[in-house]
């Protein structure tokens, strides 16, 4: 019988408190600040309050990765348990979080700690954690989980849209050339993640058409096959409801999880984000 596997992630995975508690996951918060006032993601500020303040703020909040010390503190109790630790985080192309975790790993010199760059964030990271947790709970080993994740990006479809490009542009987390996604004509650009980088897929005019198109693109890839699905919004419950209705009509979901974007991720998407990830079992 191998030692118990424990998962560590960061707050950008946007896991629900219930899920975190149920599966005993350690979440290391990123940090943000409105002016001088600093907060820990999900700990000191919850999404509702965050979006209310974001809409009123003159300047975008700043965000920062956890320090290696934060990771040391998170890993310490697990090391003492003698657990096998899998620490999976937001894409290194988007944040320095993975580097901080790796630094902590070097300092610890603990052999049973794997730090993984998810090459994604939010619900897309969330999806990987669910898949890993499920395998661990069925008795899979750390190697099995890492192997399973190797193929994750080829089994998943990720799409999201934003109401306005403003936040993504200000946040600087998008690749070069994406500035020309049109700020006129009520264009709703649809994006995906490729190699950890936000990548434009299509430009669609109008929200309804963009939502239709997202679900259509997913359907073109998965057809009638059963898939796991997570959808989420950033302070856009109407969009989320519209997306959900379309998903339920068009996609064969073996599970459909409704999530939302937290404060740190919401800083870059801005209010009005909706996203979907579907993945099939290998």
């Amino acid at each position: 019988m191998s030692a118990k596997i424990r998962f560590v992630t960061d707050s950008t995975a946007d896991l629900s408190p219930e899920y975190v508690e149920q599966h005993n996951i350690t979440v290391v918060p990123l940090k943000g600040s409105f002016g001088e006032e600093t907060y820990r993601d999900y700990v000191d500020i919850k999404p509702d309050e965050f979006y209310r303040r974001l809409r009123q703020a003159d300047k975008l909040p700043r965000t920062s990765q956890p320090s290696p010390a934060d990771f040391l503190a998170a890993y310490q109790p697990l090391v003492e348990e003698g657990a096998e630790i899998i620490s999976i985080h937001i894409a290194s192309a988007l944040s320095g979080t993975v580097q901080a975790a790796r630094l902590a790993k070097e300092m610890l010199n603990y052999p049973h700690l794997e730090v993984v760059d998810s090459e994604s964030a939010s619900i897309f990271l969330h999806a990987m954690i669910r898949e890993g947790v499920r395998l661990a709970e069925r008795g899979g080993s750390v190697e099995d989980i890492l192997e399973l994740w190797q193929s994750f990006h080829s089994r998943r479809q990720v799409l999201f849209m934003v109401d306005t490009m403003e936040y993504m542009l200000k946040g600087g987390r998008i690749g070069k050339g994406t500035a020309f996604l049109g700020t006129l004509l009520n264009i709703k650009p649809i994006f995906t993640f490729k190699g950890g980088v936000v990548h434009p897929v299509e430009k669609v005019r109008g929200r309804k058409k963009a939502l239709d198109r997202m679900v259509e693109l997913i359907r073109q890839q998965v057809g009638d096959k059963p898939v796991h699905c997570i959808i989420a919004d950033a302070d856009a419950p109407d969009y989320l409801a519209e997306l959900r209705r379309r998903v339920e009509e068009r996609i064969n979901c073996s599970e459909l999880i409704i999530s939302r974007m937290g404060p740190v991720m919401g800083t870059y998407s801005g209010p009005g984000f909706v996203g979907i990830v579907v993945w099939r079992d290998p």
Partner: protein
Amino acid sequence: MKIYSFNGKDLYAMLVGSTNRLAKRKAEIDALNVFPVPDGDTGTNMYYTMLAGAREAARQLDENIGRVAEAAASGSLLGARGNSGVILSQFIAGLGEAMAGLEQASLSDVARGLQRGVELACQAIANPVEGTIITVGREMAAAFSEAAGRSGDLVRATVLAYQQAQKALEKTPELLPVLKEAGVVDAGGRGLVVILEGIIKALKDAAASRDVELFDVAAQQQRQFASTSAEYLDKKLQYTYCTEFILSGSQIPHDTLRQELAPYGDCLMVVGNKQTVKVHIHTNHPGLVMECGLRYGALKEIHINNMEEQMQEQNGLSAPAERPLKKVGLVAVGLGEGINIIMNSLGVDRIVQGGQTMNPSAQDLLAAVEATPAETVILLPNNKNVILAAEQARSLASKEVMVLPSRSLVQGISALLAFNTYEDGETNYKRMEAALAACRDGEVTVAVRDSSVNGISVRKGEYMALTGDGLVAAAANLEEAVAGLVGHLSGGKPGLVTLYFGADMAEAEARWVLEKVQAVYPRADIELYYGGQPVYHFLVSVE
């Protein structure tokens, strides 16, 4: 008065003669427009194409006819504007091929060259339509061939060809029903007839000068004629400032304004109605032009561009810091401030001004393509009349160019929406092509004369809804015409409707029209944007 052989200078005199003739007749040719829209430009396009050929010939002026003919061919290929201009440039290219390497040419070379020109023109256009410049050109070439079989006199042959071309022109309405309905002959064909008139005049002058060659005076006159013409041609292109503005007044006399402005430069356009006039001119005295305009109303939206500077920029003379080459660049023909802004926001690298009222030349398009720092350029002509010139630019370009056959500004915008910088040229081209096919669009403007098209009769002053298929609705009110167009495009069930309002409309007025259309189609999403295009009150797309 017979000419059996002629040299480079004679050819040049013919080019100058026909160019000058076209200059005089271009407005009349422009007016031969199937749709009563004040945007006809066939005459202007043919004139600029001839002018470009004559100008290049002036640069290479020589006794050797091969050199002059080739220069005229390359000049007109580059300067070709509009479909008729491109076809005309192919006729000249045929002559260039036939005369290449010759010291002097004879009538049989002309006949051979024009036959070749007709072949080239048919290759250049995908579906040659009878009843157009192609038909008139073929008849002209046949007449030269026939005459060459009888006698070698170029003057007589040209007169015969002129008569034959004139007959063919008169028959164009029989061949092309839209011409008959509109009660006009084909404009491009008419242009060709005018060119022949110009050549006859030049030949007669030349023949006269030969007959009296012993008299110094006449010979000198002839030389003078050639040299002043050359000067005149050069001067025409020496205007530096492209000056544009909108004039608002109450009773603006277009013709008077046009006459007053004409001496200040070239490329003059005075379009609009009695209250609002768009003025465009290339001049060295933008201040004087505006002063002149001020006498008739208030000036708005003044744009003065230094074309020399633009040209230098385009040629990379005042080269900005070296930029890395993009995989795929975009060059689009745009018209109207608002449209240009939208196109820029969709990633267009270079916008070439032009379109319906002022077709850009192959050279304008080529310059923009060459100035775009990309390995491959997708070129959007955004007007059915510019597609051929775009093809011409493609064949002349030093880099890979893909011409997307977009036939309107709105189609161009739809195609641009499908563009993705991360994909290669091939993939993008396919996506954009599919977007073109899915785009349904049209435009609304005022009829400038009574007409009947597609079985719909329209009276002067009424609003017309036009699509790529022609006139689809006419109404006394603007809002009815727009609603009619939306209904036609969508089969009565519009989803997303986009209205781009023109330069001559106030936003409040445009919004009022939107509300009226919304009342007719309450379930449609209707969006309104400023297009700023001349002539058309609204450009409309339906998705």
